[in-house]
């Protein structure tokens, strides 16, 4: 890592990796849909935003999160602003959680994440149904929330490894 730090250019790319990953994920929407597993899907940007706005806010600009949401809406063909709204709600939730937490705990974070994504997906679902007359299957949202919750713990261990490398 020290060798990387001496090379300023690579270190910058490495330190902005989460935000790059966020933009790649919203443009790419990778969620292994092509495996055709019934109901299987998860929301990677939710995990990424939640973790990095909670743990390493320095490199995670809210404005970029807002733009990432706009891109996601265009790629997925949702009404403009919906994803930005959802992502910013996560940011608010993490900001609040950061302010009230005295002793951080992984398990607490995990279940708080479940609460946050459930709330956000519910709001999302309601807005699309009520204001935009979309026909949606609730089951997909529930399964998506469940798998996002499950995958959180896996990705968090990878992100922690990344943060450790960055701080070292």
């Amino acid at each position, binding site marked *: 890592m020290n060798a990387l730090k001496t090379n300023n250019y690579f270190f910058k790319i490495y330190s902005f990796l989460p935000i790059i990953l966020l933009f790649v994920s919203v443009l*790419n*929407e990778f969620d292994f849909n092509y495996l055709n597993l019934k109901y299987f899907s998860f929301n990677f940007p939710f995990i990424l935003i939640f973790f990095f706005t909670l743990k390493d806010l320095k490199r995670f600009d809210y404005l970029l999160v807002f733009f990432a949401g706009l891109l996601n809406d*265009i*790629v997925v063909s949702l*009404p403009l602003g919906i994803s930005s709204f959802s992502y910013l709600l996560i940011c608010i939730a993490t*900001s609040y959680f950061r302010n009230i937490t005295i002793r951080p705990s992984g398990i607490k974070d995990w279940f708080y994440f479940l609460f946050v994504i459930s709330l956000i997906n519910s709001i999302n679902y309601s807005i699309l149904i009520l204001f935009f007359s979309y026909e949606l299957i609730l089951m997909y949202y529930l399964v*998506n929330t469940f798998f996002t919750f499950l995958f959180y713990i896996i990705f968090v261990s990878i992100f922690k490894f990344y943060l450790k490398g960055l701080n070292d």
Partner: protein
Amino acid sequence: MATSRDDFIIAIRSAFLKKSTQQKFSLLSLLLISISIIVLSNLNFKVIKYVKIGLNEVVYRSSFLVSIPENFVKNSFFEIKEYSSFFNEYKKNKKELDQFKSNYVSNEIMQFENKELKELIDDFVSSSNKILAKIIVDHKSPYLKSIIINKGSKDNIKIGTNIYDQSYLIGRVIEVNYKTSRVLLLSDLNSNVPVTIAPQNVQAIITGTGKNDGKIKYIKGDFSSDLSEENIIYSSGTGGVFKSGIPIGKLKIKKDESTRNMSVQFYSDFSQLKYVFAEIISKKDIEDLDQVINQTNTTDTKLKLLEDEIEIIEDTNLKFLKENETLKFEINNLNTQISSLKDQVFLQKKEIDKFNFDEKELEFLRLNLIYGHKCRKTFLNSSGFKINTLEYRECVLNKGIIN
């Protein structure tokens, strides 16, 4: 109690308003901007619409570039899967090709017949020109099933343009940009297609399920009990959004204890699409019919392969015709031989007849010498007959006995 409420309010205020060290905007301002964007897009505000159109082009292209690595992995995955079932696929394809070959000729006849009938009904024919489009983004979210193609208003794509995979209907264009368009697939929950279920010709509406199949949303009249497994579903053209007579899929019926669930199995696998055809339709008068017929379209290029095969068949047909001619010539020769032989037989028969006749004459002369006096009419034999009469001849042949 009051302290904990104060803490909560402080934490909330801090979460909303406090800008952290490197944040340029507070969360509250960004949240208000996103809410206003949502409201304005709900009201179809023009500025938002133009911003979206402007962003679409850039985002779709960037999405295509970003997706290259994932697409590589995805394609490798499918290729490996394909190799494992390569031989079986080959056998299946061979069988299908044979079937298609036989169907091709009858289809062509039907196409011409259809064209003629349309002329009679409408006084114009619609000339369709299918253009090949590449799918640049196919990230179907679990909620929305749509794809982005690399053709837009520049290529005469319009909202509602029908999109095909081979000759199967897969969706319609719902958003058009200058060089790209978004296609809503038939499997989407928001897709409704008026269809005809053959062979009963039952009118129905199918909708997507959000998965890779569809379901019957509405059936006109009480005909659902008449329908059976493997019924063919094609577009009815009602409403004018989709063209009529385009195959969509097969009907699948799942029977539970009390209910009868009808689903639609699409002919196309929407997860495997790489290239699609967009149909650009223009109306032309009958006077331009010749031009319409001469117009080449992309389907023709595909049919060219089949035409090559037909050429081979025609060559073999020519060979058969030649062989047939030589055989005909041989048959003619044989026929002349037979007729000459018949003549010969006829002559021989004639000779035999003559011989038989001579023999009878000789017998008559012999008997005439012996019994002629008994039959001849004389002064003493008044019951006799005049010579050279038939009665005389009979009398001689009866050995002089007069009847």
